């Protein structure tokens, strides 16, 4: 093919393509608008449940909230009064205890998978079971807690609840930690190794520190998830109207209290149920807001690598 032919060839192609572009431009504009419209409708559909839940909970729950409600144990079942103090205390204790168990195990297991295991068969198996565990029904985990730590100890107790919740937390923390660590560029690890820093210190103080924000996000995700769990708590801490009585007694929790209030036939109990739901939502929301504040504000200033 000589140069002239080649030239004509190109001009013909250009004409065909330009004609097609002009012909389709009207249709393209319409399709563009329709597509944008559909995405907006879907956003609205997704927001309706969230908005209406928040609206209903605030509307019905706000009237129940008072200092007494937040600090006192439940009053008479028939006449009402008192509050959900033990449930708030119990949720903080149980979830805190669960985090003490679940967060270190989750982070270190995630570190192992990302930094040490490579693509070994063992690592593949661990990853597989970890993702199976993420979808495990929480009532099953409650039954495990009941058999292993309630029957053996002889009483419903906070440790059984915390262990059950930590079993729910661990797979979430493991997965998020591994994923975030994999986002840290290898050049950062190499730089640290080139300074003669031993591998365990590189992993803990350089790599994990670079992935700090992502790991924190995973922890908050896991904490928020278990703070609202009810089923495993029925089988492990049972619920009580008393404040914390010790490590071998039942403990209360907000989701349990909401469930009990809702199943009582009294108007004041229903109002307390809404109030308890509002308290739980506020606790979880403020944790997320605190995280965003810490991660986005400080993370930005420190030039952090993995942003939310």
């Amino acid at each position, binding site marked *: 093919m000589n140069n002239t032919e080649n030239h004509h060839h190109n001009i013909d192609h250009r004409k065909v393509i330009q004609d097609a572009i002009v012909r389709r431009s009207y249709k393209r504009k319409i399709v563009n608008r329709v597509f944008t419209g559909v995405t907006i409708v879907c956003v609205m559909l997704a927001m309706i449940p969230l908005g209406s839940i928040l609206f209903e909970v605030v509307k019905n729950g706000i009237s129940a909230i008072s200092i007494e409600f937040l600090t006192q144990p439940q009053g008479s079942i028939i006449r009402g009064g008192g509050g959900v103090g033990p449930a708030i205390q119990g949720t903080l204790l149980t979830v805190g205890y669960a985090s003490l168990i679940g967060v270190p195990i989750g982070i270190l297991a995630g570190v192992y998978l990302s930094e040490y295991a*490579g693509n070994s068969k063992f690592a593949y198996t661990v990853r597989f079971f970890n993702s199976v565990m993420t979808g495990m029904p929480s009532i099953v985990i409650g039954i495990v807690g009941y058999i292993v730590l309630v029957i053996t100890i002889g009483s419903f107790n906070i440790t059984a609840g915390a262990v059950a919740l930590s079993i729910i937390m661990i797979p979430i923390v493991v997965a998020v930690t591994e994923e975030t660590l994999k986002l*840290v*560029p*290898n*050049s*950062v*690890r*190499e*730089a*640290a*190794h*080139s*300074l*003669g*820093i*031993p591998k365990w*210190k*590189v992993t803990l*103080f*350089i790599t994990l*520190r*670079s992935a*700090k924000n992502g790991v924190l996000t995973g922890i908050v995700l896991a904490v928020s998830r278990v703070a609202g769990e009810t089923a495993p708590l029925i089988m492990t801490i049972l619920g009580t109207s008393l404040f914390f009585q010790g490590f071998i007694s039942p403990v209360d929790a907000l989701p349990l209290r909401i469930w009990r209030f809702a199943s009582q036939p009294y108007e004041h109990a229903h109002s307390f149920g809404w109030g308890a739901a509002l308290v739980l939502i506020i606790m979880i929301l403020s944790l997320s807001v605190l995280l965003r504040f810490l991660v986005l504000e400080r993370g930005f*200033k*420190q*030039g*952090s*690598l993995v942003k939310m």
Partner: protein
Amino acid sequence: MSWMSSKEYTNTISYKLSSLSDTKRHGYKVSVKNLNSWFGSKQALKDINFDVKENTVTALIGPSGCGKTTLIRCLNRMNEMTSSAIVKGSVYLDDIDIYASNVDPVIIKRRMGMVFQKPNPFPTMSIYDNVAAGLKLNGIRNKALIREIVEESLKGSVLWDEVKDELGRPGLSLSGGQQQRLCIARALAMQPEVLLMDEPTSALDPIASAKIEELMNELRKELTVIIVTHNMQQAARVSDYTAFMYLGELVEYGPTKQIFENPQKELTERYISGKFG
């Protein structure tokens, strides 16, 4: 500039080193003997031999894929970070074979600093912490000493005047050239005897590159520099010795002036004059 500025630092570090002895193999700082390397089944280095004198700058040049980066990464056992890499042969640092079975690669890396192709400051750390990290994580606790070494190292990499008032800023907020000098300061803080630089200016603009080249002239007085470069003019400007590599082999090695003005091998001559590569 005194690299062993404090007795305490020297004491803390030196008991960890297997040897700080002055007996050098044939008087060379670094000696490479019959070095071969593979990635999987592909051979990347073929029987490399050369010796590097103390307080010199040695440039490794050659076309892309010739093995120069693999070679420099073999000199401080950094290549072991790549799981498929295999090495046979010896590299001597003074009189120690760094591949001997009783040598801890962590200690070799403390003695041989490395600067990478792309600036890679630690992302969540301030300028100060970037330079101090190696000291702190190697167990140096004396804050005044760390401060002194951080200042000395930043002066050593000619970054001090630009950052001295904002050492708390994130390392990543600096420009590319400044980040690279930060990485050099970070390596210098460990008081290395050898500094390995893997195309340290390839991601930088000409002005930032010129600063790093000037810096190499200063560094030569304190330590031994080995640099990989794509840029032949750079090799000619900064180095005392040049090694030309091609397809995993060391084709020619000698004084830079000789390599550039009177190469002994035809292949070298053709590469230097830009006929291929």
